[in-house]
C-alpha cells in the first residue's frame, strides 16, 4: 500500500501557476484522461464529493444494486473492452461489499480500478461511522492499494493505478480517498509517464530460453500446448494458431483459456482439468513436452502428478515470474507476455514431427452429449451444445459457478468469448458480468448461464439490466438445489444432500414479470430450442428457465 504524503499548500500550487481544483475534480479528470467513459458503482456519504464531480463529467455512471454487482460488472466490461474496468463504492460497508468482486478479479487477473470513499483523514483510525480499514483489508486480494492523503497526489496515483492494473499480470488496484481529500483544493498534475522503480514488467521472452524451447520441440515425440486465460488477456489467439499450425502441435486450454483456439480446430483437444475433456487430459498426461502459456497451473487444471525429469519436459511461459514453478516443476521457464513470446518462438521457426502422437490422439473419442429422452427435463449438456450452435460468431457466453459452469465449459463450442470465474469461483458472477459485457459491446449477443442458486445471489441486478438498457439473455438452469454441493455431498460423503434444498425460491417467471423481462420455461430440449430462437431473435432482455433434473450430475 502507498499512503501519499502531506498536503501541498494551495500557496505552493499557485506559485507554479496551476489552477487548484478539488480532489474530486482531479479524480474525474484523471478518469477522463484515461479514456474512461463508463463506471459502475453505488454512491454514499464518504464518496459524495466525487459523485458530485462525476455528475458534471459526462462519464456514464451505471448504478448497480450492490457494490459486488458493480465490481463484477466492471470485470465483464474490462474483459470485453480489454482495458481496466472502474467500480466505485463508499466507505465501510460499500467497500467491504466490493471485496468479493475484487478477489474475483484478482484470482482471474482481470484489470480493475476500484475507487472507494473513506472517512475524513483526520478521523482515520477512530472507528467512526462507516469506517473500515479498506486498504488493509483489501491488500491480500488486490494488486496494489493507495490511501490518498493529499489531493495534489491524485493525478499521479490514478495514472499509476491504471498502469499497474493493466500491465504485467493484470489485476485490481484500489484507490481509497478520504472525503476531505476529495474536497481539498490542489493543482492537478498528471505525469506523462509512470516511473515506479519496483515495477518493471517484462514482456519480451529471453532469446536463449526461447531457443531452448525450439530445441525441445525438435526433440519432442508427444508435445502439447496448454493455453490459459493469459492468451485472452494478452490477445495472443493469432500467435497460438500460428505456432500450432506451423508444427501441427496439439493444443488444450484451461477453463480460463476457453476461446484461445477455435472450438472446431483439428488440433484442439478441448479443456483440461478435473471437469475437462478426456482427450485433453490424456494428451497432458501422456505428453513428453508440455508447453504451458498464460496459465497458473491451478490445482483443478493440471495435477502435478509427474516430477520434472520423469519423461516430461515442462515449459512455462507466464508474465508473472512467481507463477512459474509454483505448482509444477519447470525445466524451461520463460517470463514474458504470451503474445510476444509465442511470436518470438514462431519466428525461430521450430520444426518437429510426431505423426504417431497425432494419430493416437485422433483415435480418442471426442466429446459428445449423451443421448437421452427429451423431457420432462432439459439435458444440460445437449442444451449448451444446441445454444452454442445458434450463437452469433462474436457472441459472448458467460458461465456462472456450479454445475452450470461445468456443463457450459465442457459443451461450449462458440467462436466468440467465454467468460467465467475460474480462480475464485464466485457464485452470482454471471448476471452483473453480463451487464458489464453488454455495455462494453452493445452490438453483441450476451448470454449468461447460471443455476437457480447463483441466480438468487445476484438477481437484484436485473434492475440494473433494465435501468441501463442492457438486453442480456439469461439462462437459468433450475434444479431447485445447490447442485454442485449436492453432488460433492453425494460423491464424497455418500450423503443424500444437506442444506442444499432451495425450497422457498421464487417463481422465476413472476420475478421476470416483476422486472418486466420476457420469460420462457422449457422442460425439454425441443421446447428449449424454440425458446432459444425466441430469446436470441428479440432485441430485449430475456430469461430462459430450464427445468433440470435435480439428479443430473456433472461426472
Amino acid at each position, binding site marked *: *500500500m*502507498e*499512503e501519499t504524503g502531506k498536503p501541498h499548500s494551495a500557496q505552493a500550487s499557485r506559485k507554479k501557476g496551476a489552477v487548484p481544483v478539488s480532489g474530486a475534480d482531479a479524480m474525474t479528470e484523471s478518469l477522463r484522461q484515461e479514456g474512461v467513459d463508463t463506471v459502475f458503482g453505488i454512491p454514499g456519504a464518504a464518496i459524495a464529493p466525487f459523485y458530485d464531480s462525476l455528475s458534471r463529467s459526462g462519464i456514464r455512471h451505471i448504478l448497480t444494486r450492490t457494490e459486488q454487482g458493480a465490481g463484477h460488472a466492471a470485470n465483464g466490461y474490462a474483459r470485453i473492452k480489454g482495458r481496466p474496468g472502474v467500480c466505485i463504492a463508499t466507505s465501510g460497508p460499500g467497500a467491504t461489499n466490493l471485496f468479493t468482486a475484487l478477489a474475483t478479479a484478482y484470482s482471474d487477473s482481470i484489470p480493475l480500478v476500484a475507487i472507494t470513499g473513506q472517512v475524513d483523514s483526520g478521523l482515520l483510525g477512530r472507528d467512526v461511522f462507516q469506517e473500515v480499514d479498506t*486498504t*488493509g483489508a483489501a*491488500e*491480500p486480494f488486490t*494488486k*496494489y*492499494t493507495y*490511501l490518498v492523503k493529499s489531493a495534489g497526489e491524485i493525478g499521479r496515483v490514478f495514472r499509476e493505478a491504471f498502469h*499497474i492494473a493493466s500491465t504485467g499480470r493484470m489485476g485490481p488496484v484500489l484507490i481509497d480517498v478520504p472525503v476531505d481529500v476529495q474536497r481539498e483544493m490542489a493543482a492537478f498534475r498528471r505525469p506523462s509517464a509512470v*516511473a*515506479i*522503480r*519496483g*515495477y*518493471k514488467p517484462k514482456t519480451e521472452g529471453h532469446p536463449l530460453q526461447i531457443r531452448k524451447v525450439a530445441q525441445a520441440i525438435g526433440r519432442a515425440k508427444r508435445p502439447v500446448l496448454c493455453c490459459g486465460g493469459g492468451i485472452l488477456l494478452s490477445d495472443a489467439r493469432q500467435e497460438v494458431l500460428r505456432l500450432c499450425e506451423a508444427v501441427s502441435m496439439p493444443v488444450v486450454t484451461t477453463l480460463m483459456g476457453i476461446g484461445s483456439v477455435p472450438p472446431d480446430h483439428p488440433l484442439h483437444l478441448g479443456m483440461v482439468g478435473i471437469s475437462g475433456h478426456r482427450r485433453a487430459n490424456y494428451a497432458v498426461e501422456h505428453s513428453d513436452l508440455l508447453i504451458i502459456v498464460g496459465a497458473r497451473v491451478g490445482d483443478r487444471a493440471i495435477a502435478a502428478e509427474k516430477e520434472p525429469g520423469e519423461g516430461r519436459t515442462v515449459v512455462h511461459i507466464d508474465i*508473472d*515470474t*512467481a507463477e512459474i*514453478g*509454483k505448482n509444477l516443476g519447470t525445466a524451461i521457464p520463460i517470463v514474458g507476455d504470451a503474445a510476444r513470446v509465442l511470436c518470438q518462438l514462431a519466428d525461430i521457426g521450430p520444426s518437429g514431427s510426431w505423426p504417431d502422437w497425432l494419430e493416437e490422439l485422433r483415435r480418442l473419442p471426442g466429446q459428445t452429449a449423451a443421448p437421452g429422452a427429451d423431457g420432462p427435463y432439459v439435458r444440460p449438456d445437449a442444451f449448451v451444445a444446441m445454444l452454442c450452435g445458434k450463437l452469433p460468431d462474436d457472441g459472448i457466453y458467460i458461465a456462472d459457478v456450479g454445475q452450470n459452469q461445468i456443463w457450459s465449459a465442457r459443451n461450449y463450442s462458440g467462436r466468440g468469448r467465454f467468460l467465467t470465474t475460474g480462480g475464485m469461483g464466485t457464485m452470482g458472477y454471471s448476471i452483473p458480468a453480463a451487464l458489464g459485457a453488454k455495455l462494453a459491446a452493445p452490438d453483441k449477443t450476451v448470454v449468461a448461464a447460471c443455476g437457480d442458486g447463483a441466480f438468487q445471489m445476484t438477481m437484484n441486478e436485473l434492475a440494473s439490466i433494465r435501468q441501463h438498457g442492457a438486453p442480456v439473455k439469461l439462462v437459468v438452469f433450475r434444479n431447485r438445489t445447490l447442485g454442485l454441493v449436492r453432488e460433492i455431498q453425494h460423491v464424497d460423503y455418500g450423503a443424500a444432500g444437506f442444506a442444499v434444498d432451495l425450497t422457498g425460491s421464487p417463481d422465476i417467471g413472476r420475478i421476470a414479470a416483476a422486472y418486466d423481462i420476457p420469460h420462457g420455461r422449457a422442460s425439454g430440449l425441443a421446447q428449449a430450442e424454440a425458446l432459444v430462437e425466441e430469446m436470441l431473435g428479440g432485441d430485449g432482455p430475456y430469461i430462459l428457465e430450464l427445468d433440470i433434473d435435480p439428479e443430473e450430475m456433472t461426472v
Partner: protein
Amino acid sequence: MKAILSVLVENRAGVLARTAGLFARRGFNIASLAVGETHDPSVSRMTIVVEGDAPLIEQVSKQLNKQIDVIKVKTLDSELSTRRELALIKVNANPKARGEIFDIASIMKASIVDMSPATVTIETCDRPERVDLLLSMVEPYGVAELARTGMIALEKGGEAIQLPE
C-alpha cells in the same frame, strides 16, 4: 535451511504490513526480520531470515519481487556476508555469580551495560550464532529478559546492490 534475504523497499507506510502479510498468507516462516532506513531516505532495507528448502526460498523471493513497493531482492550467502545481531540480555546474577558472568561476557566480547542487586544486563553485537552461544552460556544463571533485533547483513567486499533508475 535458512536463507538471508536483503530486500530494498520503498520507505513508506504500509510496506512492512504488506510484506509481513505476504509471509503469513503464504505460510512462509520468518526466523527474523529487521527494518531500517538506508542512506537514501526513500529506501528501507529489510533483512529477512527465512526457513525453508531451496524451492520455497525461491518462491519467497519471487513473491517479494512481485510487490510493487519492493525495489530489489537479493539472497545473501552467509559465508560471503557480514552478519550482525544486537541483543540485550538481562541475567539473574547474585553477587557471587557476577564474576563468572563478567568473565563470560568478556570472553564473548560482550559488555555489561546495566546492573542491579539481582541482575546484570549484557549487550552484545555479534553474528547470530555467537549471540546464541552467549545466551546458552548465561542461561544456567537464569535469563530474566531478552531482546534481540534480528539479523542485519551486508555483502563483504566492494559490491553493492544497485537500485534501478
